[in-house]
């Protein structure tokens, strides 16, 4: 039995379930109370759970993360909303120097169950600092876990799993997918959060991506199939740690891997996937692992974002290049 809902609604329902099942779960962030967040992901939750569980904060990201750390020290499980990707950076120090390290600094006697929700990525035509993909900065930091759902079903379950994790989780929400509907099965997640998943079977080329890109990979696979090319698509889902076994198995089957992401390619999550596939599937590869990424630029003004971001055409171009080896 499934229900059809948007990703924003699925997240809302996931947060509602977490708030209901554990009185230590708190939501905190800017404009998340009566307004329900700028993307309405927390809509109705303050009215339902009260302003001591769903807390509107002053406008200060370091303050949000730093006080969430103190709340976690006192036994709470805070879920912070960062309003937009580009506004994570005032909180960067508290995330990387404090949140990520406190369990190790306490030699395991302190857990840091803090979730930081970050709406991220482009395709919404927004102004500067509102369309970025900063996940690599955090994937580089030991002590953090990173998740990014691509579907409403995963959003519903992965946010709940993030909240029950005893480690800090950076939860990257593909904001261009907030309003897309999909089926949510409330009975079963079907798969653990920190797992990558084959979302379309194929035999000739493997496409790997996460978040909003996954739907584009599926579109590319449909177009390629019409042209006679069989493409396998893998949704990373977890960016730290990365579950490599399904990716390596697919690479061993197809011999050709293209990694796609909105983020700039230089020193990115996609770079790490490419390097690891090269290490673990070297004798199976028929072509070098290729990457399709945002260019190594500041995110451009919105009228140029379609040039900057990967597109179905750029992905198919990379598929053709991989096949040409």
């Amino acid at each position: 039995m499934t229900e059809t809902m948007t990703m924003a609604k699925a997240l809302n329902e996931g947060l509602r379930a977490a708030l209901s099942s554990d009185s230590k779960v708190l939501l905190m962030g800017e404009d998340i109370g009566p307004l329900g967040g700028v993307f309405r992901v927390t809509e109705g939750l303050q009215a339902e759970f009260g302003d001591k569980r769903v807390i509107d904060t002053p406008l200060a990201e370091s303050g949000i993360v730093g006080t969430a750390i103190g709340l976690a020290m006192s036994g709470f499980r805070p879920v912070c909303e960062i309003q937009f990707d580009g506004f994570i950076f005032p909180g960067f120090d508290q995330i990387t120097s404090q949140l990520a390290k406190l369990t190790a600094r306490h030699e395991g006697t302190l857990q840091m169950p803090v979730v930081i929700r970050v709406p991220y990525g482009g395709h919404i035509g927004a102004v500067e600092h509102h369309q970025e993909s900063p996940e690599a900065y955090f994937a580089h930091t030991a002590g953090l876990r990173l998740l990014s759902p691509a579907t409403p079903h995963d959003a519903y379950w992965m946010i709940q799993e993030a909240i029950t994790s005893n480690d800090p989780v950076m939860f990257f929400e593909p904001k261009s997918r907030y309003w897309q509907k999909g089926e949510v099965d409330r009975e079963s997640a079907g798969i653990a959060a920190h797992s990558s998943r084959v979302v379309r079977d194929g035999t000739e080329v493997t496409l790997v991506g996460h978040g909003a890109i996954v739907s584009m990979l599926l579109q590319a696979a449909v177009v390629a199939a019409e042209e006679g090319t069989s493409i396998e698509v893998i949704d990373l889902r977890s960016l730290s740690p990365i579950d490599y076994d399904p990716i390596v198995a697919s690479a061993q089957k197809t011999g050709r891997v293209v990694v796609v992401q909105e983020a700039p390619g230089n020193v990115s999550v996609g770079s790490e996937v490419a390097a690891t596939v090269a290490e673990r599937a070297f004798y199976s590869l028929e072509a070098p692992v290729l990457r399709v990424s945002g260019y190594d630029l500041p995110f451009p003004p919105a009228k140029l974002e379609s040039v900057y971001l990967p597109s179905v055409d750029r992905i198919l171009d990379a598929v053709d290049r991989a096949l040409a080896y």
Partner: protein
Amino acid sequence: MPYTAATVQLLSPEGKLVHSDASEQFIPYVDKLSDDALQEFHRHMVVMRRFDIEAANLQRQGQLALWVPSHGQEAAQVGSALAAKPQDHLFPSYREHVIALMRGVDPITILSMFRGLSHGGWDPKDHSNFHLYTLVIGSQTLHATGYAMGMNLEGRSGTGNPDTDAAVMVYFGDGSTSQGDVSEAMVFAASYQTPQVFFLQNNHWAISVPVSRQSRTPLYLRGEGFGIPSVQIDGNDVLASFAVSQANLDAARSGEGPRFIEALTYRMGAHTTSDDPSKYRDNSELEFWAQRDPITRFETYLRGRGASDDFFAEIATEGDDLAADIRKRITELPVPASSTLFDHVYSDPHPVMDAQRQALADFEASFEEGN
């Protein structure tokens, strides 16, 4: 010099009790103290200074990579810490060694950080709620504020029960007041009316930069600017530090919201053993503060109340014994096994930690005979 008419001082540098408009409301807090209690203040300060000197010596002899001296700041730290109750949570920066000892942290644990053996490692739950040191300047003020927000949410203060009502006290320095986190902590504390005391030790120097570069206004007025009742004290007067901290912690515990104390003190030594204060500050300033030493003035006061030579000899011996003890134990500290590096980065199982722990073990085993 830094004192103003608003500065609360209960004991003059000459060791005499002071009666002034600023001090009057705090006198009752010290009037009730017995001679034994007052001698306890002194014992902590003297033993601490001896520990501090020994730790600096150990650094000079190569047993520690670094030491962060607290010489000169004993009164600010001991007075405020004695005002805290066991249920209060104390968040230090990284110079509050005496408070660590007073809350039950083994001094060797403090030294092990500076020997390069750990980044902390005590559990605040088992050490009278004394939290870990924080080396990034000012970051701990937000953790303290978040902790105090949690106390509010759980009703751990403001119930009217003095045995259980709790508060948070967070220590930070004059340099950190320029950090955004400290301002954000005061915004959040004022906004949520947290049960918390901001305890600023203004030791006048942030490594080589004087406090005048951090602020053109007395720092306690910063607290006022955020809507937090604030007071400036003579931080080298252990009685003022105790009395004002107790009054403000009482207010915080009873649900009256946050408070801010600026303790005027002086870092008599270097910021750490890595710098040389003679490059950036005048001897005349050092001389001014040497005449206001917290331990000398309190000894005069105690002698005036009849404390015996035996008492002073006894605490000097206690300090020497502690110094000998840490000197003996420091070289016996084991280096942790390399595999422990991976143990506590995450609380839940993590495949990368498992794989890298195994890879390191295999690599190390490859050097063993027969491989």
